[in-house]
């Protein structure tokens, strides 16, 4: 096992523990936004897609890269926006007149 791989495995295992610690405290109220927000975070693959789409030489790789960027962007942009839309709606008090009712 290379030192590089060993280090990556280290990070993987520790990050899983961090994830369990951070997320187990989320109340049921916020499960949907948690899911769609974390979903947007999983779109981080886009940074790999960008490097592939940005290379020059192999047309097949460029096309795969293009689709990877499209998919990743839909995931990231759509995920964060829809989460924000949901979270705007969670209020303790009924909304006053100055606030919109949210798009529906």
């Amino acid at each position: 096992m290379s030192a590089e791989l060993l280090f990556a495995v280290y990070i993987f295992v520790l990050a899983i523990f961090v994830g369990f610690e951070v997320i187990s405290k989320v109340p049921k109220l916020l499960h949907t936004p948690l899911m769609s927000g974390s979903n947007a975070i999983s779109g981080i693959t886009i940074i790999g897609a960008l490097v592939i789409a940005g290379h020059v030489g192999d047309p097949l790789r460029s096309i795969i890269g293009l689709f990877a960027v499209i998919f990743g962007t839909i995931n990231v942009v759509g995920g964060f926006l829809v989460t924000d839309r949901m979270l705007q709606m969670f209020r303790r008090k009924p909304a006053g007149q100055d606030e919109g009712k949210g798009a529906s």
Partner: protein
Amino acid sequence: MSHIISELAYLVAGACFIVGLKWLSSPKTARSGNILAAVGMLIAIVATLALREILSFVYILAGVVIGTGIGAVAALKVQMTAMPQMVAIFNGFGGGASALVAWAEYVRMTPGTFPIDLPVSIIATVIIGAVTFSGSMVAFAKLQELISGRPMTYPFQQVGNGLLGLVIVGLSIYLIVGALSQGPVMGLFLAVMALALVLGVVFVLPIGGADMPVVISLLNAFSGLAAAAAGFVLNNHVLIVSGSLVGSSGIILTRIMCWAMNRSLSNVLFSAFGSVVAAPGTAPGAAGRAAKAVTADEVATLLAYANSVIVAPGYGLAVSRAQNEVRDMARMLEARGVEVKYAIHPVAGRMPGHMNVLLAEADIPYDKLLDMDQINPEFPNADVAVVLGANDVVNPAARYDTASPLYGMPILDVDKAKHVIVIKRSLNPGFAGVDNELFYLDNTRMFFADGKKALVSIMEELKNV
């Protein structure tokens, strides 16, 4: 040097994701948490574009423009009632992106120039990513009702799926070993990817609509694991960190959803729950008893003179899009001094937290939305419990009828309220396919109507009470 700076930027991005998720755990900070995570993503993207080896921006620009267009329009247009399928499809695209990244890395492998773990992580990424993609698309189709939400079963389904899994594993081992000596074997690689796509489809098909909260949570975990696996392919630590965070979040939600139904994950995934539907009137105790129907004015009178009312919403609320009517009725009652609360079962609806999002959309303050554990002790003191589009989660048979498929599932104790009003279109059983004896109890009255129309007519009558 630029490599070190971009790695540091990735570290900042990873920290933003962790703090962002942390902030998501309180309604007060949740919105900032989401924005912080989005900022982290932006930092990672900008660092990649500025500091990594990017020779051409043509495809990148095209991809980002198309993806932003589709993602933004979908996110801003979607109705809150359609949120489960929207989450499912976004999730699928994330998994798909990871699979594509792994494919592109496979294309450029040359024999003898890489360690064994590279083909292993490439194949793992492709399989997990492809299953996430096609599985999420089927979940989307079921939730959008493009295909039936009922479990789809056929002979030898589980054996067939198991064999498919074994074939994929076998081919993958051959590919990994082969990659070391002969380099990429394109045809076989594409076959594995295609079979993984098929596996995603056949894996979700037999799972029914009411079990979707579990499936969506699980696919959410998969999309995270796919991203983490892609991180191993690219040796990129921010992918590993973010993917693991999402993976653990999805696993936690999956476990919570299973607990809420008192069923194991394998039971949810493999039992095709809800494929057998009982005829109405077959509940134990239903024999010889008829459900008692009421009219809008009787319901209005009952509600108007109550001290406390608890509303138990379910998927039917989302179907009839009645969240604003619920709020209006509650406000009319509150104006009369009636206390109105909401009882939220963890698996009510089609995804974790579905009811909370719907009721929040209607501006109902979130401190009136009470979890099952908080609200159950309050039912005996409630004058009226209004069951609105919920069925299996309020079936008392779950408490004692060991023969019921629902046995052992924690339920909302609506039957303990002095009066129970069930608003429902017919006596048809709920998703689990079991008749609901709640409908035949002495203190239960049935109001047969679509949820929205029922509420409108009750409000009309309330004005006259």
